[in-house]
């Protein structure tokens, strides 16, 4: 009985870890595509807050979760167009302009929430969709195959993006403009457009990440992300700019968060220590950055605007 109990807690913790990893994974994968093209987007957190609000508001008004998810992606695309103008056309410094995007997203989502919704109201949540047959497998079925479709999508994106980056012409162009834009340009690859597409993919995924975050919770509050988007940026370094690496990082973060939640619920750690435990992702990131610094190679042209002269 006690074995069964521990096992069911373990399964529930792993399942919750995978669920919590989803927004990290979506945002981190999107950031990976952008950074491989040489563009750092520090505004992910702001984009996520904006898309989370608009996705939440849509679902609150229409009860349509699919529409809400699309609205999240749409908000991401709009912010992507803006970010492409800032970094590709106007060639602004990427770190600081990302902070501008972050502040705008933080302020505007807060403004809209207070004005249009006021007090947090629960909206529909993403339902779990058990995969037939697979979810019947004992133990791992429940942990791995009873999630929302956004979670499946996030994990499905890992091999898709890896394939895209490695094998397709578009993916090779992205890597080329991120490593050596001058050479890519001389071979006739449009650096500006390639980076623009990469930014759009990245922001669309950040938008979806915001939607996934809020629709999983079913409720919005100002500063909902609490730095999640920034950690997603760090995950790209953690994962050495590879989708599979980003996935391992996201899973690690999700599982750590799930374990902390579980411990808190069971009273293994006192309530007051949960604030200390909440530092785990940030501390883990700093440690990872120290360990990985110099061992992984960033795209050579990362944060460098390109111009022909």
């Amino acid at each position: 009985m006690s074995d069964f109990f521990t096992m069911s807690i373990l399964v529930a913790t792993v399942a919750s870890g995978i669920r919590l990893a989803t927004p990290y994974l979506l945002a981190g994968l999107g950031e990976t595509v952008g950074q491989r093209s040489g563009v750092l987007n520090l505004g992910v957190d702001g984009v996520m807050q904006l898309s989370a609000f608009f996705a939440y508001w849509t679902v609150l008004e229409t009860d349509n979760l699919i529409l809400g998810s699309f609205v999240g992606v749409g908000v991401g695309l709009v912010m992507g167009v803006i970010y492409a103008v800032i970094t590709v056309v106007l060639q602004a410094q990427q770190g600081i302009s990302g902070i501008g995007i972050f502040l705008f997203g933080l302020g505007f989502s807060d403004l809209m929430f207070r004005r249009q919704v006021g007090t947090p109201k629960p909206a529909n949540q993403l339902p779990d969709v058990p995969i037939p047959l697979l979810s019947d497998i004992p133990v791992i079925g429940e942990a791995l195959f009873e999630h929302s479709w956004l979670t499946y999508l996030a994990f499905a994106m890992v091999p898709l993006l890896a394939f895209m980056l490695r094998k397709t012409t578009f993916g090779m162009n992205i890597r080329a403009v991120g490593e050596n834009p001058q050479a890519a340009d001389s071979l006739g690859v449009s650096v500006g457009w390639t980076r623009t597409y990469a930014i759009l993919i990245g922001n669309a995924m950040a938008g979806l990440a915001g939607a996934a975050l809020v629709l999983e919770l079913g409720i919005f509050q100002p500063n909902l992300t609490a730095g999640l988007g920034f950690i997603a940026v760090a995950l790209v370094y953690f994962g050495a700019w590879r989708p599979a690496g980003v996935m391992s990082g996201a899973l690690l973060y999700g599982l750590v968060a799930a374990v902390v939640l579980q411990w808190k619920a069971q009273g293994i750690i006192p309530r007051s220590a949960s604030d200390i435990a909440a530092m785990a992702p940030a501390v883990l990131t700093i440690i990872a950055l120290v360990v990985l610094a110099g061992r992984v190679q960033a795209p050579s042209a990362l944060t460098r605007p390109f111009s022909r002269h």
Partner: protein
Amino acid sequence: MKRLLGASIPLLAALIAFLFGAVMLLAIGASPWEGLKALLDGAFGSADRLAATAIKATPLVLVGAGITIAFRTSVVNIGGEGQIVAGALLSTSVALAVPDLPAIILVPVVLVAGLIGGAIVGAIPGALKAYASVNEILSTIMLNIVMVQLMNYLLRGPLIDPLEVEAGTRIPQTERLSDNATLPNIVPGVRLHLGVLIAVLAAIAVYVLLWRTPTGFRLRAVGHSPDAAKAAGINVKRNITTALALSGSLGGLAGAILVFGSEGQRMVTDGSSAGFTGSAGFNGIVAALFGGLHPLWTIPSSFLFGALLTGATNLQRVLQVPAPIAIAINGIVVIFVVSSGRLREKIDRMLEARAEFDDTPSTPETPAVVEGAQS
């Protein structure tokens, strides 16, 4: 012509940001004209409101001047939030430990504690960048998250007001701190405390440091070209650490001033860093950029953004427009100011054909970090 254009770029950026603000007001069904009136009235309408604006500007001046040191050394400091919190926590702890010192000693002591707290949290990402090649943008942001949680832990646990525990309400705040640590008022009859003066003096000190001392020369040399600085025998790693420590110390001082200049005379958390700092760690970046990364220009620039913040509070009161609109406008200002370097270049090129030869630089020289040449 070029010179005029260079100086007007930040103003143009502010104007565009305000136009966006007007669009936001229209979008939520408020009148931009009424909005502007409420904003100006809230920020400048009376002596008390003017003082409130100056108080709001105080942490921005400090963080902004600190940001200037970092950026002039080509180091990005996005850790203002964490540094403010660190300074506040250390100075609060000191005030709790030695509450009975006379004011003439305790006030300087808590301010120095703030400086030290911020310097420690600034020096960590500095040293990590210098000695372990850790990207300081990421590490400063991560330390922001760490410091918020530390604040929440300390204010809910070890530093909580014993009365809150007794009453069972457990509001995460310290007890009322010693009156001897309170920053004295400098203008009779108006709530304007010593912190405002300290911030202005600190910004002037940063100017002197950067342009009139050997330390400042070394920092700027590293910012200009680390390789050349190294060739000239300057210890680049140590200077990077110093830059972030100094930058952080001013954030920490802002944190101490926030606590000991507050009406409640205690440190409170609502669980977020913005709840305590009012996002001054980020808004200080906005003020510094808007001031062309010059410590003295940071003073009027911070006053402007302080006005926006106090004005927005009034906007909320009068027109029920939520105050976070100020944060959104700040974001737009940042975007336009950092985009405008290139914008200016483009406009310059357009004007080139008819402009007379003019070799005076149009703005104070901007370090590479803002122009996008950062590696």
